[in-house]
């Protein structure tokens, strides 16, 4: 732990005649201001984001399956080429390692490791975006061809937006953490950015299975 921080004083306590107050008070002056994980408001807000973005991807997948169940042939033409998407799947799988590490190191205020891991994740983010663009370019049909094509573009486009948001978060935090006088709450942000990246990776897996793998299996 390269950046030791002052520890919190512990639990809130019930006191009488604390300071200028003449009646009992719940003294919270010793409570921590920097905590991590499920206890933070940001984490809970992040759960809301997971629900909203997860519902978006989920509903597009439901629409895809709904139309697929009604079509004689689904997909109507060739399935999208696997190469780019497989590379992206590998990249996302790889990225989970620095993302999980990043969370751990952020909670320990290990600035050096956090900087290094953020730079790594930033580079992986650039790579996944480039490969995603390659994936769009290699799609066999444009979105206006038929409903199948429209939904595949919609699914991949929605995931691309999630990826862009996660990448922006990582890039901005990389710059922020490279500046001096880093506050504790920035480590909390870094911790949550790790979670957000993991969400993007998980949603890619769902997207990939539906758009690329399912036409070859079903």
């Amino acid at each position, binding site marked *: 732990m390269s950046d030791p*921080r002052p520890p919190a004083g512990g639990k809130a306590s019930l006191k009488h005649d604390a300071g200028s107050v003449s009646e009992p008070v719940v003294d919270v002056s010793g409570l*921590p201001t920097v905590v991590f994980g499920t206890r933070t408001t940001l984490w809970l807000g992040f759960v809301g984001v997971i629900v909203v973005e997860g519902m978006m991807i989920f509903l597009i997948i439901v629409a895809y399956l709904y139309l697929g169940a009604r079509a004689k042939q689904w997909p109507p033409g060739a399935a999208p080429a696997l190469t780019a998407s497989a590379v992206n799947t590998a990249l996302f799988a790889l990225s989970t390692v620095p993302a999980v590490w990043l969370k751990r190191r952020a909670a320990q205020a290990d600035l050096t490791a956090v900087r290094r891991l953020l730079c790594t994740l930033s580079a992986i983010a650039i790579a996944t975006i480039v490969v995603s663009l390659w994936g769009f370019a290699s799609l066999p049909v444009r979105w206006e061809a038929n409903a199948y094509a429209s939904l595949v573009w919609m699914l991949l486009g929605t995931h691309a937006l999630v990826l862009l948001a996660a990448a922006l978060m990582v890039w901005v935090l990389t710059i922020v953490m490279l500046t001096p006088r880093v506050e504790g709450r920035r480590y909390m942000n870094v911790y949550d950015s790790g979670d957000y990246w993991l969400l993007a990776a998980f949603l890619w897996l769902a997207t990939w299975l539906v758009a690329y793998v399912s036409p070859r299996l079903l």
Partner: protein
Amino acid sequence: MTAQHNTKTDPPERSDSASETSRHRTLDKTWMDPMRGFGRLMCLDHKMMGRWTMMIAFTFLLLGGVLSILMRLQLAQPEGTLLGPAAYNRTFGVHGTTMMFLFAMPMLFEGFGLYFVPLMIGTRNVAFPRLMTYAFYLYVFGGTIFWIAFLLGYGPDAGWTSYVTLAGRGFSPGRGVDFWAMLILFTEVAAMAMAIDMSVTVLRLRAPGMSLNRMPLFVWAILITALMALFAMMSVALSAELLLMDRTMRTQVFNPAELGDVLLYQHLFWFFGHPEVYMLFLPGVGIASTIVATFSRRSTFGYTALVLSMLATAFIAFGVWAHHMFATGLPQLSLSYFTAASMMIVIPAGVQIFCWLATLWTGRLVLRVPLLWVLGVFFIFVLGGLTGVTLALVPVDWQLTDTYYVVAHFHYVLIGGTVLPIFAAVYYWFPKITGRLLDERAGKWHFWLFFVGFNLTFFPMHLLGLEGMPRRVYTYLPGLGWDGPNVLALSGTLLLAVSFVPFLGNVLWSRKRGEMAGDDPWGAGTLEWATSSPPPACNFYDLPTVSGRDPVWENVPDQPVVAGLHDDAREVLVPHWLDGRPDHVIELPQATIWPFLAAVATAVVLVGLIFSPWVVAVGGVAMIVTFVGWFWPRRAGVERRLARERWEST
């Protein structure tokens, strides 16, 4: 349990009143946002956002009301000539859209919810104030652009549901439906942002001691509504987005000729649309429960049953959407399931009504205007519920679908479950917002004119529906026997319009000259009444702790207050979400312009979706810039924050 009313905690006595005054000044300075000129755009105060949302939503109610008068005038006689078919289509489409998306949900969830939830749970702001401001401006921009487009002749002409194929390019050329879809994206993004904000606020910022089973019922209602919104809103946002892309980017999702499906639109729309009805009704349940308890002078009967019934309503609401689609040729098994599920929803609704009746029955009634409105809810909402049971039966629905019977049913449900609770809430909470009471006599005039006007307008529509008059027609032929009920409906609508005169006069007069309210004019038990009227910028100079469901009634005289937060920073306490045990402290952001700018950039993107991908690209870059500005750490105060940091080892 009969509540005790005289145990309300007095303001804590201080050993040093001068230092106390100075402390209050510091808190005022810390929490006050700039309120002059463009400074208002930086406001992050939940009370201001709540007030502004209420005022804007009320303006939309008036605008939607004007459209309803036009419709009733048009239909008051056969072959009316006031509105042509195209104008009539736009009028009813914009009326429904305005009332659902721009009035009801914003008023209840974002207006009353924003203003009162932080006060009722004893905290100083919402968990994410910048997200709140961003959502507020999205709502304002979306509503304004939609109405300007309508007034310029670009109103949607496919109804508030915009079903394909009617809403597709082939049958609805022009930009009207595009603006409708754009509005849906604006309001739903705003509602989802607010849902995240409100749920985190309720779960993590409650006063110490306010465990989940002590939360006020209105707060429960808002929490459940927020959770529903998180799961349901994306569905309509997606249907609107797919519709917009089918129209502007030539995607084929709803085009049967290219593997698309028109019923997919209806499934997506109603998977949101039916939960939406309960998202509108549940805050009304919360308001009615609050008011019934206060004016019965006792704690709510069946608190646990009420909470569980609201949760059950929310759960069942996600399984009944296809009862809006009985006439579309669904499989027999689906029809049976959705009928059963739709019937089931009367059980939690019945629990709610009976809990209120039991509270009233066993309390000591004080019949003031807010309670009068709640009694009106009983009458009107129950009637709407009963016709709902009839419509849940497939054979009845097949006969009555798309007739005026349905129009009568959903106005009874929505006005009974939403508008009446809103007026009850206005009379109840106006003293907290302004410090002055509304006039009782004018309030009674308002209620009775509204009540009679409402029933005169909508009751005859049941008969019209049974006689076969279809909804969404701009005129009808003479000799069908529909003239009389339509004239009655017009007279009722005019009476409804007249009822707003004593209301508006009352509000305008009372906010300056009304009787002073004091902190707790009704002798109520929830925490918003434990602070001054109107509340200070920081809500509570001494953050409260609670020891019961009605803290003002139940707190012991020496109930502790929270101490140890810095007054010169926007610090709030984050207790444990389940039992309200103090856990840690966070600092909320200072006033900032970035959420406003981010909302402007988002508006450029959403409007750009209609017109040009280049506009979307420019707006997208602006969005990135504004969001980076939003999240970029402030250097001001960094040394102070670093000095006060306390880490918990993990």
